[in-house]
Structure formats: structure tokens, C-alpha cells
């Protein structure tokens, strides 16, 4: 770097650092309704009563997969990567253990956490350095992890799932604009799903939300994920999704998480070109509500269409990975 560049960089750095240093998190992020020490957020809503009520959704024992296999070639955001390496094998001649000739294999998973079907934790998204519950995260990071708002603080996700079939909503309203790359009907990128659309989707299956639910939106965009890597560029170029008013309405319904078969759940390009992932801020930063990305929704959408029931027991375990901001998850909907 030459002298000119260094001086220019210094000039810019001074302005940038000034902005960060002035952050007052009480002005940027609301407090948690669960108190000043809360690091759990919306999973506080998953009480024993909520889980018990959700269990009533299990009527046939039918398990419907709602996550995609994580494999080389699936679409990944930006520079994210995920790779497995078989690191220990004992198949070499003479390497088996004991007279029973035990062999084993292990692997190393080298991966960023927000890949494939995954959960956005509360430490994932903030405004400046302010995160959920007004936590100034700049004070709570080290070289390896966040020391507040990690996944270890989350409670159970054993609650009721409610599917909103946005494809059907748009079809029935006569406003479905699909993308030619989708093999099955899908909403095109940039399609805004409003609160009215979400409500129409619930009415379609006579569902009403209750506190502690997880809402999963079927946009059809996941069809492109399934076509990896052929349609990765299209999948990554934008997506249909919920907008701000839908997010605010879901917040008012006191849900635990919102998921979709897309990489950000929210509409991209967003409603305001100068806002970045604003629904993430509304749900995660301001309300401790999780986002579930790249959820497989087509099977549950088909099930709902067949049975005229869009609710299910939401079965997802999040590893208690200390200090992590999110993680790859497996989800099953049980009916």
C-alpha cells in the first residue's frame, strides 16, 4: 500500500470508527420482554404447555422431512463454505483393532455455521454493534466465539409448526409470477409476501397462530436449491419473501421462529434498496425471533394440500454449540 492509500485509508477509518464508538444500544434495540439478562429470546415461549399442546398435532406418526441434505454444491451465501474431510480410517491392512478386528471412521466438518438448512441465532444479526436485548456485542466476542447470545442459551423448539403456502395464496389470488427456472410453481424473486398474504395462507387451512408457534412459508423458491448446482446463480440472485409488514404481524403473534425455502426468508431485493436484510433486524435483533433458512417446504405443502391441515409438530434440535451464532439443523414435521 502506498502513502496515498495509507492516508486515504486513515481518513476513512477515522470516520468509520467514530460512528461505531458512539453507539448507544438502548437507542437502537428494544429491551427483551424477558428481562435485562435474557439471552434466550423467543424460545422462552416454548413452555411445557406449548409443547404439550403441540404434541396434539401428532396424529398418525407421519414424519415429513423439512431439511435439505448438506452436500457439496448447494447454494451458499457469499464466500461461505462447508466441507467434510474423512480424517480417521482404519481400513488399512493391519489397522483393525483386536481380535474382533474393529475398524472405525471419523470425519472433520470444516464449515461455516450458516449453511444448508440452518438456524439464525440471536448473535447473528445486529444494528451496528447492538444485538438482541441491547447487548453491545463488541464487548462479548473473542477470537473464537461470541460470549453472549450463543446457541447454548436457547431453549427447546418443540412446538407447533404452521405452514403458509404462499404459492397457493398467490395462485388463488391470480397474481403468481413464477420463475422459468423453477420446475414446480414458485414465486419469483423480488415477490413481496405481505401480512395479508400470510393471513390468507392461514385462512386457506383454517389455521390461526398462537403464541409459541413456528411459521414456515412455502414460496417454491426451494425448488432451485434442489436443482443445485445448476440453478445456484438464479437461487442466489434474489428471492421471494416476507416484507416488513408481514414480519411485524408475525412478531405481534409472538411466534418463536419464521422459516422459508429460501436463503434469507425475506424478500430480496428488499422493499427499500438502502435497507439490508431489514426483516432479520426486526425478527432477530429487535424481538429475539429466530429465522430458519433453506427449509424444505415442498413435502409439507403437498401434505397440507392433501389433508387440508397445515399444522404439525415441529421437531428440531439445535446443538448446544457454545458461542455460536447459528447452525445447520435437521427438521422434521410430525403429524
Amino acid at each position: 500500500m502506498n502513502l496515498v492509500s495509507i492516508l486515504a485509508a486513515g481518513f476513512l477509518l477515522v470516520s468509520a470508527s467514530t460512528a461505531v464508538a458512539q453507539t448507544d444500544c438502548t437507542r437502537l434495540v428494544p429491551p427483551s420482554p424477558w428481562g435485562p439478562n435474557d439471552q434466550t429470546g423467543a424460545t422462552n415461549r416454548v413452555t411445557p404447555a406449548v409443547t404439550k399442546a403441540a404434541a396434539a398435532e401428532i396424529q398418525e406418526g407421519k414424519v415429513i422431512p423439512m431439511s435439505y441434505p448438506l452436500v457439496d454444491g448447494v447454494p451458499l451465501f457469499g464466500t461461505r463454505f462447508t466441507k467434510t474431510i474423512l480424517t480417521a480410517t482404519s481400513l488399512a491392512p493391519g489397522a483393525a483393532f483386536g481380535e474382533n478386528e474393529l475398524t472405525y471412521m471419523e470425519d472433520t466438518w470444516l464449515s461455516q455455521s450458516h449453511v444448508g438448512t440452518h438456524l439464525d441465532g440471536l448473535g447473528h444479526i445486529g444494528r451496528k454493534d447492538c444485538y438482541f436485548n441491547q447487548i453491545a456485542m463488541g464487548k462479548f466476542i473473542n477470537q473464537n466465539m461470541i460470549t453472549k447470545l450463543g446457541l447454548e442459551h436457547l431453549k427447546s423448539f418443540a412446538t407447533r409448526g404452521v405452514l403458509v403456502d404462499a404459492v397457493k395464496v398467490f395462485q388463488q389470488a391470480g397474481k403468481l409470477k413464477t420463475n422459468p427456472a423453477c420446475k414446480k410453481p414458485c414465486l419469483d424473486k423480488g415477490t413481496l409476501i405481505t401480512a395479508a398474504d400470510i393471513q390468507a395462507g392461514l385462512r386457506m387451512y383454517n389455521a390461526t397462530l398462537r403464541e409459541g408457534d413456528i411459521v414456515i412459508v412455502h414460496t417454491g423458491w426451494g425448488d432451485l436449491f434442489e436443482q443445485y448446482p445448476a440453478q445456484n446463480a438464479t437461487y442466489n440472485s434474489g428471492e421471494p419473501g416476507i416484507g416488513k409488514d408481514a414480519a411485524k404481524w408475525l412478531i405481534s403473534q409472538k411466534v418463536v421462529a419464521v422459516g422459508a425455502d429460501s436463503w434469507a426468508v425475506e424478500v430480496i431485493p428488499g422493499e427499500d434498496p438502502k435497507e439490508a436484510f431489514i426483516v432479520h433486524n426486526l425478527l432477530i435483533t429487535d424481538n429475539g425471533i429466530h429465522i430458519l433458512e433453506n427449509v424444505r417446504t415442498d413435502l409439507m405443502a403437498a401434505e397440507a394440500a392433501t389433508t387440508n391441515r397445515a399444522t404439525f409438530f415441529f421437531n428440531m434440535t439445535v446443538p448446544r454449540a457454545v458461542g455460536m451464532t447459528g447452525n445447520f439443523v435437521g427438521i422434521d414435521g410430525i403429524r
Partner: protein
Amino acid sequence: MLLIAVATAILAALPAGADGRRYTIAFANLTEEPGVMLEGTGFTGREVRESFALAARRLPIDLVFYDNRRDARAAVANAADAVRRKADLYVEYFDDPAANDAVARTMREARIPVLAVNHPVGDAPLYTADNAAAGRIAGEALGDFAATVWQGRTVVGLIVGPVGTRQLGLPERVKGVTDGLRRRRPAMRIVTLETQGNPATVAALIGRAVAAEPNAKFAIAALNDVTALAVKSALEQAGRLADGVIVAHGCDRSIHGGASDRKEIDPNNRGSVLLGSVAFYLDRYGYDVLPLALRMLRGEPVPARTTTAHKLITAANVFKEYPPYDMQ
């Protein structure tokens, strides 16, 4: 005439306005031809069109798109078709004065209000780039840099691009740069380098210019982004990267990029001699124009001339102005 699309995504299920009405607005774009750059920037007609479709999502507007194809007959025919379709308002983006006069007459007779983009259409309100202001922003940024970093050194101002073009607001842009530079450094010698719109000429032009001034520093205004990147490369080839600072015009995607693109203007690339690019926001025209159109339709007064709010985009503000929120 080519009616390219009727926006079906915005239908009655979306919100109506405060007056309970939805409006049909026709937008006739200058051209949709791939690769054709507009207004002396790197933006294409497709980006302009998309900005209208995106901006309309939250407005009580049904859009009808036309492509004027840079053809006067197409422009006139498109206007006639919009009359037949009973559009509530016509947004005309075309650069031929005679055709625009004809469109103005057609719309006046049909009592359809017109909003003009970048080129006057009768006495219709005009939304337009402000090339003089954009150039001035670039010139002042270069002048400020020179005054701060190169105090006491000989600094030559270079304006690089199709400087002799009499259209696209380029004369105003060049004058704006000159005014901006002189405002900060009144005695600065300013040289224009004519590229004829061909970035491949930049290496030789810059090479000669910097070789002639072995001890000087160079405050360089590039009239568009692609030229700016060529200037940077030329300085590097000449071994004079440390002696130049560049400000571009346009700020198209080639320079601010997506999530995974190599971005010339990037918080992680603060050391670039390409200090910034003055944003022309053709990819956001819809967000400026459609609210104006709604005000006209509701009988509210609008200014006779509304200009783009140009801004210098640097590594310090690029992620605010252009969040790299796609996955590419």
C-alpha cells in the same frame, strides 16, 4: 412498437392508495437492448425497468412497460398504445426532442399527464440526472484529496472519458468537474483526455500524460466507472499508481459489486486509488419517479424539475448505499 410486459405481479390484492384508488402507470423506457449503457454511465435499460417494478411493489400502481428501442416511431406508437389502454399517467424516457413533442401532443389530447425522464417532454414535470452537480461532487472530492494529501505538490487535474461528446449531459459533467476542482485548487492545470468512449484507449492516454509530468500528482475524474477502472490499470502499468487518485461517475454494479464480487469500492479495499464514484442511481429511478407520479395523479403539486440526489460513494458509505445483499 414493442409492448414488452404488463406487470401482473402488482394486482388488486396489494394496497390501494389513501384515496382508495389503484393507478395504471405506463413507463416507456429508452431502450431495453442488452449492453446499451445509458446517460454516459454503466447502467442499462433493464436496470431502470427493474427499478420501476421493484418500487411499485408497495405502491397502489399497476405498471405497463414499453420499450422505446431508441426509435422515434416506436416512442410515438408506444404513446398511442398507452392512450388506447387508458393509462392514468405516462412516464416517458426518450431522447429525441421531435418524438417527445409528438408524445406530449398525444398525451395532451388524451388528457393523460406525462412525467419526463432525463429529456423534456413538452411542459411535463422532468425527473433528471444533474450532471453539473455530479461533476462538481467529483471535482470537489478530488480537490479535497489533493489539498489534504498532496499539499505543496504539483497536482494536475485529468478528466478522462468521452469528453467531446455533446450529449448525455457530458459537457455539464465535465464543467462540473472543472468547477469542483477549481473551487478547491483554483490554479490547478486541468487536462482532458478524449477516449471516444473506448476504454482501450485509456492506457496510452494516461501513459503519455503521466510520462510528461514525472514529478506531478494526478487528480483524475473518470466520466464513467469502466473508464475509472481502466485509468487505475493504466496508472499501474505506468508505475505511477502512487501518484494518482481517481473519482468515477455512475457507481454501477461493476464498481460496487454483490456479496461475492470483487468490489473496487469496498470497506476491505480502502487503500484503492479509486477514491469513489458519484452515484447516478439509474437502478433506483423507479423509487424516485413513481412517488412523483402518484403525487401528480392525486393532484398534488410537483416541481417542474426534480433531480437525482447524486452522492459520492466511497469505501466508507458503499455498504450503506449499496448493501451487497444478494448471494452472488
